[in-house]
């Protein structure tokens, strides 16, 4: 069975919870067991928000340090703050033009999501831009771009205008990877 442990990190208001659940529901659609752990309460007011996502046969909702296969960071400083969760073979998808002081040997998939979101007049879409960017890297996640797109469409079926802007942001992240020749 596929087995994957991920860390998703950002600050309150960036939509970490949304993309965590989006990926978890994608796992269920693929017939995979899934566990997540979310941050709620006071930290959601602009503080550090971290989600753990475990796809496969796990019993604990938390990822231990040194065991994450990858990390999605919606702020560059979060990539540094939480990189101790990553395994030696881990990768980082990050909202940044590049990752300063990154662990040299780790694959880093950057995307300047803040400026892309502002250009698209969709300041709340940073989360989907970064997720789209990571999904452009074949084989990194337990699912692919199309798997997630289907779930996104299902989740936002009753909110057509939000769905449209969300899909645009999601594609913009993936397109950025292509444009940058990543």
């Amino acid at each position, binding site marked *: 069975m596929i087995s994957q442990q991920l860390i998703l990190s950002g*600050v309150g*208001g960036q939509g970490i919870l949304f993309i965590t659940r989006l990926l978890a529901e994608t796992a269920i659609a693929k017939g995979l067991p899934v566990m997540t752990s979310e941050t*709620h*309460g006071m930290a959601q007011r602009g*503080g550090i928000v971290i989600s753990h996502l475990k796809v496969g046969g796990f*019993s604990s909702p938390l990822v231990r*340090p040194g065991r994450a296969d990858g990390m999605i960071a919606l702020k560059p400083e979060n990539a540094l703050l939480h990189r*101790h969760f990553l395994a030696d073979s881990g990768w980082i998808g990050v909202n940044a033009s590049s990752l300063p002081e990154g662990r040299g040997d780790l694959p880093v998939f950057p995307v300047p999501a803040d400026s892309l979101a502002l250009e698209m007049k969709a300041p709340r879409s940073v989360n989907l831009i970064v997720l789209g960017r990571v999904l452009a890297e074949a084989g990194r996640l337990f699912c692919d771009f199309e798997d997630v797109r289907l779930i996104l469409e299902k989740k936002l079926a009753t909110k057509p205008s939000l769905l449209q802007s969300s899909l645009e942001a999601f594609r913009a992240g993936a397109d950025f990877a292509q444009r940058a020749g990543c």
Partner: protein
Amino acid sequence: MSERILMQGNEAMARGLVENGCIVATSYPGTPASEILSSVMAWQKAEGLAMHVEWAINEKVALEIAYTASQSGLRSAVAMKQVGLNVASDPLLSAAYLGVTGGFIVISADDPGPHSSQTEQDSRLLAMLAKIPVLDPGSPAQAREFTALAFELSEAFQVPVLLRPTTRVCHACQDILPAEVNKLQRKADFRKDPARWAATPNFRYRLHLDLNRKLADIAAHEPTAPRLLNPGAASSRAVVASGVAAAHAREILENLGLWDGLPLFQVIQPYPLHDTFVRNILDTYEEILVLEETAGVIELQLRDRARVRGKVSGAVPEAGELLPELIEHIVAEFAGMPFDPVSTPPASGGRRPTLCPGCPHRASFYAIKKAAPKGIYPSDIGCYTLGLNLGGVDTVLCMGASVSQAAGFHQTYRVSGEQRDVVATIGDSTFFHSGIPPLIDAVSQGAKFVLVILDNSTTAMTGNQPTPAVPLPGRVPVAIAPVVEGCGVRFCKTGDPLDLPGFTHLVGEAVEFARNEGVAVVIAKSPCLVDRTRPRLPRRQVEVSETCTGCRVCTSQFECPALVYDGNTKKVTVDLLICSGCGVCIDVCPSRSITGREEGP
């Protein structure tokens, strides 16, 4: 339903309640328990069930309403966070003696860490105090399963049952297959029995004896007995764990290659611990490691200090969350294995939570500091505790204490022959929860202070649950101002904090009244920006001009996260990604360098 769906632990508990015929469910919101009742509401709607589901004014009232349904023969439940159980402990301890008719579950969600609480208290200790059984789920799936166990246990022994999830159960999500709703078709049937339901002290003694007998029987109740998770494992040592610590331990034993070599027991019912289990485990194993959060409740009931390792013995930390990396270390040591220290987090970094950009509370605190710059600022529990960041909060004790503490400061300084300006802040929901009795007390005792009620018409911190003042279908809204006036307060005025100059003037007027006359109340009325049920208003686009002097009043004294000081230009810029366009900073800037123009929504 035939599909597995992603359920949060709180949703799963709610599903369990609904599936097992719960008819009355009540709650007061508090992290990590808040989503339980909103999920009950969602399942009720989806299944078209006849239920009474209510956000009560506080946990005590919530428990009493749900308990009454149980006295009347219906299955009922009340949900709260652990500190809420302190508030509800009075009726709970009495209900334990009187017992129940319909199954009655008290859900108290603990918060080891703590992540979003004042204390790390272990609700299981309160179950011991109340002499009621407690179940300790280790995952969302178990949280759902244990609601069925709890209802059966409660009805079998006519006793309230505590269900004690922790943050990592409440806020974990898991794929779960929902079951059919079991409609029990019960009708309310309260049978008068004053000797029991209104028992006098003489009868209470007999009820106490009954309760002790029940507990002895519950300690032999087979369905809630501890479960051996790896029956093939053989060793002279064993691990006993409960809650999410058992879930962590399971994965860790597998990773360490100990699954076949170290028996792991999951305790379902930490109190009362099953007698046979206690005897067997002490007879069978030479050494026993107990992993549980947050106190050593199971450990205390394993009566052999020399062979039992846990919190009391010092093998397991007695404070803080029992994170899996910590458990890995403890288990490896217990099994006599070498252990490689894992990579550790950076020593510094992160960012503190802050009031949202555009939050009206920020403007209220700024106005209070201007109106009473030398004041003492007692505050309370809610988002506005974050007024700490801008120096608008001096004390936070517990729900409602801002009002009593304001009175306490007045009286304390008065006996010393001094008068200090005291300006307290309390949220609207917290005011209803427990701010009213201390306000009556303050007025009747002649205290002098200002109370600013931060009225954003919602319970914001926990996810925008309605307060009693919110008009909803089928409810009678209760306005704050008449309540305040009914408490005997003679100065009660309402203002909009986003009109900073006007609101600062109003707080100044209240400070003046309090100095001379008595308690003054200001209601700061402005809606929460995070409340998505409200329409978005047209907003201003705020700009910082070249005349910015870099004085940083707006970033330190006003502390808006959308205003960012740029060390290179020595000027402030606006983070347009998060600016709400409230425009309050225009009035905060001493050099009038912030300007705004109207924009569309």
